[in-house]
Structures are given as structure tokens and as C-alpha cells.
């Protein structure tokens, strides 16, 4: 193909992309002269150039279309939707011919007679068929007139300050810059060895310039997301015609930039989701009228940056997801039982639409529902390290949120070592790091041949990287010390056992050579700062290889495990020791902490005076334990996360020291707000944290009854010790329960006689006046509470104690401080109630 033709094709393709958009804009606002001239100019240019190149078909259609446009521009003929449709079909014909030209180098054979005749008829003002149809359309469907956009008017006159560069050139630049960076790194290494070297200062400058250059070249790969959206207005218009629906498409944040490569990969999922919204999400005008909504449905595309990610939202104001229909389908397909569904939130139930083969569309339409479901969308997005979630309210609409990394080229990764080799694990899938073995660290345990780790009451399946990659050197080193990288794939949590953990590094992901692609354990390879090559592990490949991914893990599953497997040891309490501010080390019972996180300082954001971090899809408030603490600019901030589910808060500490098992002997001397008192741990005085106080610091309304449909389950807690009450109650409240406390069995019974109603009772065993056993027996004897589930809470949970508790009438028996077990038990006890 000669250069002239190639240039023409590139230019025409660009012109055609903007032509669709411009025509649709014209349709909404026929009086917009600027847009009309732009359309005219585009078509005119196509006609002129192809006459010159000798492309008769293209020229013929362009000529006929130009005639109509010319009359519109002169005001001789009015712009009608019918006319727009005609010009759009001419634009389609252009695309068809251009595609043929690209493939073969010459115009494809075809008959443009009818199209040209229709255009000519329109030009002569007759076109009875088109006009009649168009008029009918205008009568019945007043096209929503959008505000004329100011930018479009100016964009035509101002030539953009850009030029076209071949992608190859950019890719080559990227490669050169990578080489430059590596050379720079080597030089820096050399300079470090030599003190006061004369080249130290210029080298520093070179280093800075290299970094800037790298940023600059990365930027050339960035494109506005609007480029991926260009085809959507046309798609939506065609869909609304095909489906007989009125749809308005609104696009926000079209200039949000992301890597070219990422954009190519999300184009298809995006199109699919917009189709879905138009087809399944929005109702017909009639249905909307009956529902009291505007007849015109709305699809909103929104893009914005968030940390190192870009968030894309596709929302509609349609009928929303039908939770009951999803439930029926879930049960029919055996994905979950009715009881399991009863414990799930609406949102969790909605997420079933991402499961393979799951489609709630009652019938397959030509538009969507062609067997390509949301699961494919989800898989494609996850493949590039993204996540997808949805929020839906019946009759209000559905919004999908896609979160994807800005670029695939650079990712944060954790560098680990196993069997003497180093590997990179993408940070995206890593939840936390746990040190195992050693003197006092948690131990890896075995159930038959499979290794597990007990982590905060949950059993975490373990995969040894050394075994998996057949790096087994000597049998001796298997069971000593190491680290567990806790990883999440979908709902499945698992731990990857490695020997050592190094730092995190920003890595440039490169695909592996074709002769290695069959190894599913790796997602790519990269070159580290020191110049060595390292393989990048693919956590989902590892999960698949070990059979972990297949089970898919229902969300309730892990909770049940924890309830049955965690009868922790006797009277000792596991305390987390940490340092924050001056004075004694601080401690908090490990059982109260949901998670330990080491947050990247860059992720911490400020809203007004408060600090927050985006954590698992919500904003989590962060509270410094020491008000004088300075926030690190870079690096990591250790955070203790309290609460779970919808509410969580992070307590920022300076350093996490240790986890110790001690028997608690409290001394309330020197009491300060925020602390319950002090105790001696490992020979040192240690301040014990008042969790409830700090939760209130994060959110004043922490314990206010709010949220979900008003009625929270009511829990009665009988516990004589203030200390334990302060520990347990916040955890229960944070989980969404309404709590009333009493200090012994006698007081509890007084509430019963006063007619108070509860859904569940949690009781201590050793209490003055009337102990837990006495209370249980009294409750079971009769009265309004006789059928209530009762949970015993005790420092000792030997089998004999458990038996005695059951005999007295307790439904469950939980060790104190076992937060997860307690919450699991509460949920279990309340299940029949929620199902009602």
C-alpha cells in the first residue's frame, strides 16, 4: 500500500470516529452550526481526497451525503432525525469501504445505488418515506436536547497541539529509557563505593534527569479514556432504536488518562457492560412511566483517578437487580443454600452475577445475553490486576465499578526468596505478611499432609513455594522459620510460604519467552534495580495449581471453620504489643483486632482534619494513637484495624513489637483516657488499650444505632468485670449489634421481668450474686426468654466446662477474647431469626 493511501486511511478513520459523535450531537441540537460545519467539512474532505486517489465508490457516497449536508448548512432543508439516520448509514458505508481498502488496498465491490438514491431524494426535499418516518419519530419521541457544550464549539477552531507518532517509536523509546535507568543504577552503585568522587554531583543530576525522562516516556503511553468511549454514543443510539427504549448517555471524566495497553484490554468489557445496562438495566418507556420515572433512561459513564488506579463506573437508573430472582437462581444452580443466603447481605447476593454461567436475563436477546456473562467481564478485568464490584438498588438502578491499575508496565511487587531463588509477588493480591516458626511466632500445623496456619481464628491453607516450584534443596530446612504471604484470590484466602521477605519494588512487567508460557505459575518476569532477572509469581496460577481456586469458597464457609476449630488455650490471653508515643509499650488483646496492616504512606489521605485510607472499597478513618506522632512521608505506616464489614477504623502506631501469651493481671493505677490500665508483660509495665474509646475517636457515632433497615439484633451481655465488658462490647457493636450490658445474672432476670426483649444473651460464667450457670437455668425454666439462644463466655473452655454449660442451657461456649469465634457464634445463633 503506498504511503499516500496509508495516510488517507489513518486520517479518514479519525474523521469517521468523530463523525458519529458529531452527528449524534447534531441530532440533539439541530441548530448547532459549529457541529454542522464540522460534519460537512469531514465529509467534504473525504470526498475531495478520494477523488484525487481514484476511489469512485467512496467518492460517490460522499458526494451524495455532502449534498444533503450542504442544504442543511445553508438552511434550505431542516435537519431531521430521519436525515441523520441517512447520513449515519452513509458513514457506515464509508467505514465498510475503508475497512476493505485497508485489507486489500482497493475498494471492495458493492452497490451503493439505493443509498445514493435515498440521499439524493433527501437532497431534493422529497424523500416521502424517510420524512414520514422521521416526522413520526419527532412527534412521538422528542429527542432530549442536551446543553450545547461549550468545549465542542471551541475545539473546532483551535488546532490541537499534538502530532502523530508511531507506537513502535514510543515502545523503542521505552526500551531505551529502561536501559538508561539500568545503567544509571549501576553507576550509582559504583559511586557509592567511592567517597567524594568528583562525578558524584553530575551523576546525581544525571540520575534526576533519567527519572524525569522515564516519567515523560511513560506519559506518552497514556491516553484519555475518552478514546475508548468514542464508539459508545453510536452504540447506545443504535441500541435505543433496536430496543425501543429512550437512552441518554452521559460521560464524565473522558480526559482521565491511562496506559494505552490497559485501554485496549478494557474496551471490550466496557462495551459489554454498556450493552448490558441498555438491554437489561433500563426499562422500556412504558415501564418507566408506570414506575413514575422519566421516560428517558440514563447511562452514566464516569472515570477518575484514585491512588495508582483508575476507577470506571458504568451506572444506569433502570430497574436494578432483582435480589429474589438471583436467590432463586443461586439455589437452583446449587451455588449456595437457602441458609447461607440468609446470612448474606444484599450486596453479597448481587455478586453472584459474576459467577460463571450465571445470567438472570429471562430471555436471550440479540443485544446481550449471548452466553458471554459478567463472569467473562470479571475474568478479563482481573487478568489485568483489576477488580469489579457493583451496587444495585431495586427500581433505582445498578452501578458497576471497575478499578484497574493505571499501567500494566509498572507494578509494585514484594520480593521474596524460596529455595535460594528470588521471586516477585504482585502487591495487589497480598493482604499481609505473617512470620512463622522461630521461638514465639505462630507455628505451621499439619492436617494429614496439608499445611495450615491458624490466623486469628481462621484456618489458612498454606502452599509452600519451595515444594510447588520443586526447589526442595535439603529436607532439613522445611520446618524452621519463614514467612507466610497471605494472598486473596476471589474469596479464597491462602498463604504462600517463603523463606525470606525482602523489600517491595516497583517492577516493569515483561512477558516471559514463548517457550516458558506453559508454566502457569508465572505471570511474567522483570529486571530488578540491581540488574538481575526475576520471575513474577501469579497467585491465581498458584491457586489453580494447588486446587485452591476450584472450590471457590462460599463467603460463609470460613466462618464455620473458625467456630469449630478455635478452642484456644486456657486462661492466657494473646496480647499484641506495640509502641506508640513515649512511655510504656502498649498492648491490646489480639482477638479484638481484625487485621494488621502496613499501609503505604502514600495511600493515606486527608479529609479536613481527619486521616483516611481507602481500604477494601470503603474509606477507613485512621486515628493516631499518639497525637504528636508525625506521619511518614514515604514508606509504611503500621496500622491496627478494628471492626469489620461496613465499619472499620485504623489505629496508627509506631511499631508492632510482638505477640505474647500472658495471663492478664490488671492494675488500674494511673488510669488515663484511652487505656484500661496497665499490666506486666515480659517483665515490663505495659498499658492496655481501651478499644471502645478509640473507636469513638474515629467515628463519634460508632455505637449509634444507624444503617441497615433500622432494626439491629439486640444482644444482652452479662459480665461483671468492667475490663472485659470494655473489651467485648465494642467488638459486638462494631459487628452491627445493639448491646445492653448488665453486671450479673440477677440484673439480667430483672430486665426479663421488666418485659425487655433480646435476640440473644451472652453471659460470663463467674459473676457475683447469680453466675452464668444459674442465669442459664433460670432463663430456660420459662418466661419470655426461654427459647433465646445463650452464649457462654469464659476464660476456661475445657470439655468438662463446655458440657456443664450445655447442661445448664447454653447454646454455645466461647473462650473470652476469641472475637471471631464469638461473632461467628452470634451470627450462627441469629441465623433462624434473619431467615424469617
Amino acid at each position, binding site marked *: 500500500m503506498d504511503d499516500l493511501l496509508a495516510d488517507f486511511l489513518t486520517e479518514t478513520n479519525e474523521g469517521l470516529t468523530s463523525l458519529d459523535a458529531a452527528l449524534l450531537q447534531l441530532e440533539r441540537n439541530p441548530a448547532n452550526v459549529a457541529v454542522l460545519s464540522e460534519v460537512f467539512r469531514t465529509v467534504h474532505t473525504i470526498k475531495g481526497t478520494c477523488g484525487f486517489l481514484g476511489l469512485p465508490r467512496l467518492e460517490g457516497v460522499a458526494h451524495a451525503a455532502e449534498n444533503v449536508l450542504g442544504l442543511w448548512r445553508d438552511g434550505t432543508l431542516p435537519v431531521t432525525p430521519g436525515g441523520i439516520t441517512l447520513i449515519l448509514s452513509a458513514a457506515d458505508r464509508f467505514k465498510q469501504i475503508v475497512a476493505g481498502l485497508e485489507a486489500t488496498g482497493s475498494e471492495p465491490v458493492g452497490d451503493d445505488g439505493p443509498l445514493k438514491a435515498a440521499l439524493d431524494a433527501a437532497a431534493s426535499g422529497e424523500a416521502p418515506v424517510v420524512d414520514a418516518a422521521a416526522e413520526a419519530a419527532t412527534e412521538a419521541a422528542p429527542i432530549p436536547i442536551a446543553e450545547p457544550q461549550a468545549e465542542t464549539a471551541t475545539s473546532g477552531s483551535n488546532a490541537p497541539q499534538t502530532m502523530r507518532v508511531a507506537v513502535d517509536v514510543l515502545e523503542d523509546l521505552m526500551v531505551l529509557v529502561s*536501559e538508561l535507568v539500568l545503567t544509571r543504577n549501576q553507576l550509582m552503585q559504583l559511586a557509592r563505593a567511592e567517597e567524594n568522587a568528583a562525578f558524584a554531583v553530575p551523576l546525581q543530576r544525571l540520575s534526576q534527569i533519567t527519572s524525569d525522562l522515564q516519567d515523560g516516556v511513560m506519559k506518552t503511553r497514556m491516553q484519555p479514556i475518552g478514546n475508548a468511549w468514542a464508539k459508545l454514543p453510536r452504540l447506545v443510539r443504535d441500541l435505543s432504536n433496536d430496543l425501543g427504549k429512550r437512552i441518554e448517555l452521559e460521560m464524565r471524566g473522558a480526559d482521565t488518562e491511562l496506559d494505552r495497553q490497559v485501554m485496549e484490554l478494557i474496551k471490550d468489557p466496557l462495551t459489554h457492560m454498556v450493552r448490558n445496562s441498555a438491554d437489561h438495566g433500563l426499562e422500556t418507556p412504558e415501564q418507566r412511566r408506570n414506575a413514575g420515572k422519566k421516560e428517558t433512561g440514563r447511562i452514566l459513564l464516569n472515570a477518575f483517578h484514585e491512588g495508582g488506579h483508575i476507577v470506571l463506573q458504568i451506572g444506569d437508573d433502570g430497574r436494578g437487580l432483582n435480589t429474589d430472582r438471583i436467590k432463586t437462581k443461586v439455589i437452583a444452580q446449587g451455588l449456595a443454600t437457602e441458609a447461607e443466603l440468609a446470612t448474606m447481605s444484599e450486596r453479597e447476593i448481587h455478586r453472584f452475577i459474576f459467577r460463571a454461567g450465571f445470567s438472570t436475563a429471562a430471555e436471550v436477546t440479540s443485544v446481550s445475553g449471548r452466553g458471554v456473562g459478567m463472569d467473562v467481564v470479571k475474568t478479563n478485568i482481573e487478568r489485568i490486576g483489576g477488580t469489579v464490584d457493583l451496587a444495585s438498588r431495586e427500581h433505582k438502578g445498578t452501578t458497576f465499578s471497575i478499578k484497574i491499575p493505571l499501567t500494566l508496565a509498572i507494578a509494585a511487587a514484594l520480593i521474596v526468596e524460596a529455595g535460594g*531463588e528470588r521471586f516477585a509477588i504482585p502487591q495487589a493480591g497480598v493482604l499481609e505478611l505473617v512470620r512463622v516458626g522461630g521461638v514465639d511466632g505462630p507455628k505451621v500445623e499439619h492436617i494429614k499432609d496439608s499445611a495450615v496456619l491458624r490466623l486469628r481464628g481462621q484456618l489458612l491453607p498454606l502452599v509452600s513455594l519451595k515444594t510447588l*516450584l520443586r526447589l526442595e534443596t535439603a529436607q532439613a530446612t522445611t520446618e524452621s522459620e519463614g514467612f507466610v504471604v497471605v494472598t486473596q484470590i476471589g474469596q479464597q484466602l491462602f498463604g504462600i510460604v517463603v523463606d525470606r521477605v525482602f523489600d517491595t519494588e516497583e517492577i516493569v512487567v515483561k512477558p516471559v519467552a514463548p*517457550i*516458558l508460557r506453559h508454566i502457569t*505459575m508465572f505471570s511474567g518476569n522483570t529486571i530488578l534495580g540491581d540488574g*538481575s*532477572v*526475576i*520471575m513474577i509469581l501469579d497467585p491465581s496460577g498458584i491457586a489453580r495449581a494447588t486446587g485452591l481456586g476450584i472450590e471457590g469458597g462460599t463467603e460463609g464457609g470460613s466462618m464455620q471453620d473458625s467456630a469449630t476449630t478455635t478452642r484456644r488455650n486456657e486462661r492466657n490471653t494473646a496480647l499484641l504489643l506495640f509502641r506508640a508515643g513515649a512511655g510504656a509499650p502498649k498492648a491490646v488483646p489480639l482477638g479484638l483486632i481484625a487485621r494488621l496492616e502496613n499501609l503505604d504512606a502514600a495511600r493515606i489521605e486527608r479529609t479536613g482534619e481527619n486521616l483516611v485510607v481507602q481500604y477494601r472499597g470503603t474509606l477507613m478513618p485512621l486515628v493516631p494513637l499518639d497525637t504528636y506522632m508525625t506521619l511518614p512521608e514515604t514508606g509504611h505506616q503500621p496500622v491496627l484495624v478494628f471492626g469489620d464489614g461496613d465499619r472499620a477504623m485504623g489505629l496508627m502506631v509506631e511499631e508492632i513489637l510482638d505477640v505474647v501469651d500472658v495471663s492478664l493481671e490488671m492494675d488500674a493505677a494511673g488510669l488515663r483516657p484511652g487505656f484500661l490500665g496497665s499490666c506486666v508483660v515480659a517483665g515490663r509495665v505495659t498499658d492496655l488499650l481501651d478499644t471502645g474509646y478509640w473507636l469513638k475517636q474515629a467515628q463519634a457515632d460508632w455505637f449509634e444505632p444507624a444503617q441497615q433497615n433500622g432494626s439491629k439484633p439486640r444482644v444482652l451481655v452479662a459480665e461483671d468485670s468492667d475490663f472485659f465488658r470494655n473489651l467485648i462490647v465494642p467488638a459486638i457493636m462494631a459487628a452491627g449489634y445493639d448491646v445492653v450490658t448488665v453486671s450479673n445474672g440477677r440484673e439480667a432476670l430483672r430486665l426479663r421481668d421488666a418485659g425487655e426483649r433480646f435476640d440473644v444473651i451472652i453471659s460470663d460464667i463467674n459473676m457475683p450474686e447469680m453466675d452464668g450457670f444459674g442465669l442459664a437455668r433460670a432463663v430456660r425454666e420459662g418466661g419470655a426468654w426461654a427459647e433465646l439462644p445463650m452464649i457462654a463466655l469464659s476464660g476456661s473452655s475445657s470439655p468438662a466446662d463446655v458440657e456443664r454449660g450445655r447442661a445448664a442451657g447454653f447454646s454455645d461456649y466461647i473462650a473470652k477474647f476469641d472475637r471471631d469465634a464469638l461473632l461467628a457464634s452470634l451470627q450462627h445463633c441469629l441465623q433462624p431469626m434473619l431467615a424469617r
Partner: protein
Amino acid sequence: MQTNSATPTDHRAPPPAVNSEAASMMLTLTVAGQLCAVPVLAVRDVLGVQVITRIPLAPPEVAGSLNLRGRIVTAVDLRSRLGLPAREPGQVAMSVVVEVGGELYSLLADQVGEVLTLHAEDRAPNPQTLDPAWKEFALGVHRQGDQLLVLLDVDQLLALGV
């Protein structure tokens, strides 16, 4: 470490005029005492001893990967590929970097020799008695003084794991 500047090879393609001449130019290398050769046109670089990262679960012929000026090169050990005994401990390997299908591979040889012009008409077919392990990779045999030189098929050598 990198000796590429000292070799007569260059990674820019030669001008078309010398195409026929260049096509018969071969780089000789030695694998366990056997003289072999690969077409110069496929060669991008010749490197000395390199730090090679092992790749777990890779085919045994794959020695690992190495960094060539920011590009990752997969190393294939010719000894292992040609069914020869492994190198003695302490014995070093040279890397002949070739490009196949846009990817860079390093062929690990014991020594790298010179560039010779070997015309196709002087080439003898593989002898009937050639080890079956070699037949797959040999394009033919040239006489070089008192030695025999085996012309290697680079594409075939890298047809691994498919």
C-alpha cells in the same frame, strides 16, 4: 563482561546488497569439543559469562534467564539440548544471543570461534550414522581442515515446550 563490541557481529541488519553474502556467513562455536555453527544473520550478540537466574519448572534445557541491556534473554544450554554431558563445575559458558520471532534467546556454548563463509554447495547432508539426538538440529555438515562442522538449525533448537 560483554564482549559484543569485540565481535564482528552487529545487531543492525546488514544492507540488502550483501544479503546473499551475509546469508552464508556462519559463527562457529564449540559444544563439548564438537565444532558447530549458526548463521550470523540470526545472531544479535555474543556475551561472556553472565549471571543467569534459574527458572523453576522450566524444561531442563532452559538454563535460566539473563539481562541484556534491559531485555530479558532466555538461555538454552546447548549441551543439554544436544544430549551432551553437563559442563564441569567451574567451566564457564559463552552466550550466543539469537533473535527468533522477536524474542531473544541465548545459546550457551563452551567457546565461540570466528565468522566463516560457508557456501551451501559445499555442504554435505547429515551422515546416516549421526546420533538421532543431533539429526533433528543439524542442517548439514561442512569440512573444516581436519574437523567436521555441524550447521545448527536455530529455530529447531528453540522449538521447546510447544
